[in-house]
């Protein structure tokens, strides 16, 4: 009961229109201000200020350890699950609501902010059960409704045609690329607003990568997507905005075409050109 009531402010606010817009006229969905984040005594993010636009793909790039995945995990409070981590300063607002506010339930937040990981991690269950797991937890048991969601989600993840005849076989029997698309289908089944992707293609071959990228392009009509990637070409192909991080700081954030044609910061230029270090 407490959970349900504490989630109410966030739910309500998600229905409201975004409150501000950026220089390109895109409305801001996520507004990160002055964010400092720590793993114990070690500071991992320094004074991050970033406005992530709604229904766009934003890429986070930067060398390993630069804080991009840490920031990604701050956006659905995945870092809460690690002892000793803390947002010590600053705010992250989704549609104007501080997601670290006391009234926000992280479980409710994670329904709104789904996540896809580097290594595909389907549950050791059937394809069907993988998709319906989240809804069943929410108490949805109506077979017709679940069937609908399974088809819609698998179609949305461009996987339906490949698996429609074996929905009750194990998700672990799929290829790597199919497993990753299954994880995306599982994520969109609960109709989140934001999808976080942490190097979703790093374990995939070029064909599976192309399919996931194609999917990202489709999904951005409905969802706001943030993707962490080490592939410059992937960031260039898939994203509308790119943020470059280095040593826990946001170095540059701009439209992707500007980052890849004429970055303002020499560190960004060195990184995207492969001259960094």
């Amino acid at each position, binding site marked *: 009961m407490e959970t349900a009531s504490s989630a109410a402010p966030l739910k309500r606010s998600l229905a409201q229109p975004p409150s501000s817009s950026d220089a390109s006229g895109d409305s801001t969905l996520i507004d990160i201000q002055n964010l400092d984040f720590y793993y114990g005594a070690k500071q991992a993010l320094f004074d991050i200020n970033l406005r992530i636009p709604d229904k766009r793909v934003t890429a986070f790039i930067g060398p390993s350890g630069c804080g991009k995945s840490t920031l990604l995990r701050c956006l659905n409070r995945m870092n809460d699950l690690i002892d000793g981590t803390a947002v010590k300063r600053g705010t992250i607002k989704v549609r104007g609501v501080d997601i670290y506010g006391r009234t926000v339930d992280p479980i409710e937040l994670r329904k709104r902010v789904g996540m896809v990981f580097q290594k595909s991690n389907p549950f050791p269950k059937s394809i069907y059960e993988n998709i319906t797991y989240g809804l069943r937890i929410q108490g949805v048991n109506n077979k017709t409704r679940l069937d609908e969601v399974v088809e819609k989600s698998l179609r949305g993840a461009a996987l339906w045609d490949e698996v429609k005849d074996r929905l009750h076989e194990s998700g672990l029997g799929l290829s790597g690329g199919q497993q990753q698309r299954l994880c995306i289908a599982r994520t969109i089944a609960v109709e989140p607003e934001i999808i976080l992707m942490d190097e979703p293609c790093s374990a995939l071959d070029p064909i599976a990568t192309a399919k996931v990228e194609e999917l990202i392009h489709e999904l951005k009509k409905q969802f706001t997507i943030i993707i962490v990637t080490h592939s410059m070409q992937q960031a260039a192909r898939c994203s509308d905005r790119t943020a470059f991080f280095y040593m826990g700081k946001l170095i540059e954030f701009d439209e992707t075409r500007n980052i890849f044609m*004429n970055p303002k910061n020499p560190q960004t230029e060195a990184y*995207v050109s492969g001259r*960094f270090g």
Partner: protein
Amino acid sequence: MKRFFDSELETFRSDLLRMGEVAVRQVRDALQALVTGDVKLAERVIAADDELDELEKRIDTEAIRYMNLRSPIATELRLVIVGMKASHDLERVGDEATNIAKRALRLAAEPPLKPYVDIPRMAGIAVEMLRDALECFLHADNAKAVAVVKRDKEVDALNKQLYRELSSYMVEQPGTISRALELMFISKGIERIADHATNIAEEMVFLSDAQDIRHDESLKKGDKAL
């Protein structure tokens, strides 16, 4: 951090600079051959055009290979694209110089129509424009590049003036027609060289900060600065 293929871009840059040097020399030599009636020099200019043609092909091949295999981004991408365009302009400058040298050969066989004053002046400006544009390749300098773009109208004006002057020669003394026509084409050729210098200057602004200043009239008139 140095990458193992950075030397490829150095070669690309030096090829383009070499093309620039050869193109400037060709224009100067062609003009000198015209003014002094030096037939040997004119023939040397015509023969030396092959080097520019070869360099243009080499730069294109290298640019395509580099884009294909090295996936250049940001400054590197702009360098490769601008290199291809500028080399094309320089090759055309070479063609104009060759044409001037061929006309110089024909004119050397006849008495001069009039003392060469305006044509060397025009050519002097065009060569300066070319040099300044190439200077911007060595050291990014948008102000200098814009100055080149603005100077183009000086050359255009001189070309028009010469056209009028040579037209009246032809009307008044039909015996001068063939020589006056040669000079008109030479004047037009120099005007084209200045156009190519303008293109290169514009390309160098794109190289320096990705701005496209082509066809920007307010910039040419000086109503706007970069």
